[in-house]
């Protein structure tokens, strides 16, 4: 009995010499292991054809089509997706379904903000968070 307990303690004690595996978050940023990290949705206004497939496949209706006055030559009805980031689950289905690759998920996962406006209309959706910060 004592042997088993001592063995357990020994295994635990062995770990005192190993290096910590945790990361100090704000200083050492979490290494995104991939370029595929699914962050905020971003839209390319110039290639969007307004097919509304993304809003159809969106599982919780975060993605919806709105009228936005932007001329890119392919989108005759001038409807573009707008995404409610508050309910978006970053599932990536809109990216998967988009025939032109206009809507995609960026690598930006640091979305904490004081703002309460989660509904990203097309022009806001087309900029990265970085650009939005400079813009304001």
């Amino acid at each position, binding site marked *: *009995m004592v*042997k*088993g*307990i001592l*063995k*357990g303690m020994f*295994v*635990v004690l062995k*770990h005192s010499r190993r290096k910590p*595996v945790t990361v100090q978050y704000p200083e050492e940023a979490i290494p995104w*292991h*991939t*370029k*595929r*990290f*699914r962050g905020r949705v971003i839209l390319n206004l110039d290639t969007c054809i307004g*097919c509304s*497939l993304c809003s*159809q*496949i*969106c*599982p*919780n209706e975060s993605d919806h089509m709105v009228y936005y006055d932007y001329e890119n030559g392919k989108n005759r009805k001038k409807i573009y997706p707008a995404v409610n980031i508050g309910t978006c*689950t*970053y*599932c*990536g*289905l809109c990216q*998967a*379904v*988009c*025939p032109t690759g206009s809507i995609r*998920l960026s690598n930006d996962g640091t979305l904490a903000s004081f703002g309460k406006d989660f509904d990203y209309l097309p022009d806001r959706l087309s900029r990265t968070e970085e650009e939005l910060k400079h813009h304001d």
Partner: protein
Amino acid sequence: MEEKIIEVNFGPQHPSTHGVLRLKVKLKGETVLSAEPIIGYLHRNAEKLSEFNYYASNTVFMDRLDYVGNHNMELGYVMAVEKLADIDVPERAVWLRMLFVELNRIASHLVWAGTMGLDLGMITPFFYTFRERERILQLFEMVSGARLTYNYISIGGVYNDLPNEFDAKFNEFVEDFSSRLKEIESLFKENEVFIQRMKGIGILPPEVAKSYSITGPVLRASGVNYDIRKVSPYLYYDKVDFDIPVSNGMDNYARFEVRFREMEQSLRIVKQVYGKLPTGEYQNPLYRKSGLINIKGKGESYVRTESPRGEFGVYVVGDGSKKPYRVRIRSPAFQNLSATNEMVKGSKIADMIATISTLDPVFGEVDR
């Protein structure tokens, strides 16, 4: 002095009910007279939600069922839909699915091992198991781009191929995982106090297990050699070499033993699968891009898969439209949990906690 029976609510907020299980327990001193599980605190009705969405978008809900074994949940649904809509899956996609499903099984059992330790009052194994799980999650993140709700397995294949840096990370993981697993196991296995807490506790005889439709490691720990991967092989489980660990202990210790052996077997499968990965398409080109939305099915299909907790399957009824008419989820943890009272009555409070932790319920899946 008269002995009074007291009724205690364990949960829904309780440190060791693995989420939001509520147990209405009748106690006589420290002895449990009966325990009635009350569930539904995490109920979202994924079955109803699925009726309003396209076939392809429902994988998102499946992800949120068993949130520690997500790939298995996606797989169960996707395979049922593929049967329903007669969709072919490229060979590479099948192998990739198998790779991730088995890795996910390891990750899920690691979470179980850590939380079981916590339930017994051991703090440290939790950190070691989560350290290992973290490495698996990094692999998942690398491939799918998410750490928890992967949404990786798509109808007609998988959404993404392996990235270039996957190989190195994967080999690094496979190399030392088995030795680290042994180390974690030794923390439990050779510990007399642990053995006393587990041996002979929470007895589940095979007849009772069969009557309650119990599957997965819990069933195999009761001495029934029944694993869907062997009984009705899906994916390419008939092309790889692995054993089904079975134990005749019927108690908590047997369940502990079976799950640790299963992790070893899963590692074996993972190694073989990675060696056998063929090149080629990873997704059926018909169901890429806008094809995703055009999946139609008519009829009924149910495909049995072995999730980390037992038999998982989705019964899909299609009426020929782009949305399923009815989706019914067979969740293994729900069935395993229904036998709680049989297992815990007459034991002590501490044993009840240990027994529930070896059942390994995940409430996203129980409550759906």
